[in-house]
């Protein structure tokens, strides 16, 4: 298949996924006064000191770097919530807990730029690392179970960065399985010759791995 020999088949680099994650809204508490910002992506309302406002993360980080605001950590990023999530992840062997889609990127950006705004930042950071490890391990065990006849792999509640890491591998593996399992390779009970392209209408046998 064209592109099979290229190991860099991943569509997004890690920096690009981070860039996409910066669109998430966070709450900031500005310490200056500014008029509304009319941007293409939206209007971000007048900034008054000590009044909390919702802005995209990229704007929050930019303001924070200039010392014009403090960032309030999102409510999923507290030690209690994260401990709960970690417990739930460890208990359920197949399912992923619902977490914000870009939690890895948001956590990294906030801990890099807004370290003093997060209570217990080291604890939060280590919890997120643990959560990430447990989830990734689950992904790996899930991938071990795919075999021939797997048309699609569905992983619920996977986050953007995790999906980006496994995407090239899973795509390649599924391609390889499909290639080896086409009807031309495995002789079918009826001896009529089947062209490879017509393997798509193989019937409703769709096998999904959750």
């Amino acid at each position: 298949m064209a592109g099979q020999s290229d190991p860099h088949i991943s569509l997004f680099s890690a920096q690009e996924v981070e860039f996409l994650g910066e669109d998430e809204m966070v709450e900031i508490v500005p310490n200056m006064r500014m008029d509304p910002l009319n941007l293409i992506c939206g209007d971000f309302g007048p900034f008054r000191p000590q009044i909390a406002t919702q802005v995209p993360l990229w704007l929050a980080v930019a303001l924070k770097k200039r010392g014009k605001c403090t960032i309030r950590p999102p409510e999923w990023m507290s030690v209690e919530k994260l401990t709960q999530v970690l417990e739930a992840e460890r208990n359920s062997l197949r399912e992923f807990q619902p977490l914000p889609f870009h939690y890895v990127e948001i956590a990294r950006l906030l801990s890099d730029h807004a370290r003093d705004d997060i209570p217990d930042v080291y604890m939060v950071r280590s919890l997120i690392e643990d959560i990430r490890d447990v989830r990734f391990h689950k992904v790996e065990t899930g991938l071990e179970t795919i075999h021939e006849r797997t048309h699609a792999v569905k992983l619920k509640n996977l986050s953007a960065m995790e999906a980006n890491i496994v995407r090239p591998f899973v795509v390649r593996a599924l391609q390889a399985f499909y290639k080896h399992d086409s009807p031309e390779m495995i002789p079918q009970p009826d001896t009529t010759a089947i062209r490879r392209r017509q393997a798509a209408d193989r019937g409703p046998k769709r096998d999904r791995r959750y």
Partner: protein
Amino acid sequence: MAHYYDIDEIIVEEELVSAVFQKAANGVGILDPSAETNSVEQGSKVELPFWLAHELLQRQAVTINVPACFNQKTRKEIQADAPCVDLRSRCPYFYELGCKLAPLVGDRTIGSLLLQAFLSRYKEVLSKAHTAASTPVPKVLTILTKEETNLYETAQSSMAAFKKWRMGGPRFQRASVLGRKRKPTD
């Protein structure tokens, strides 16, 4: 014909397969090392690259035998313990060659052999791919075919890129063309 320019496909077709000539051929004695004259006798067995054997087969000038990497010895090894079989020294393009040969040779069991081998080796590749440290190269890497090595490297490189991102570092990198100071021209 999307595969026409694919380098791997081209190299796969260079693999030698043994073929038996059905007709005598003149002027190509170089193919058969044991020929006295510059021609190949009917019924003589020569090693041809796959692309040549494929074309000649379509003209019904040869018949192709199953190459050595698919013989009984390999099959037994694969059935015994697939992840440890050193496929790279047998034939680095094991799967691709098998896929191409299967419709030509008339051996119906190649497909399921490939599938079974790939399935069990895939699990090994998977477990090592994402997590292994990069510096000690695991032994399994030396016995993988090209296709499996691609899979492994894909996972490794995406994991390494993620780790590098996580370490942090400057968001903006100075472009290399700006690095050198221009000499003042006077």
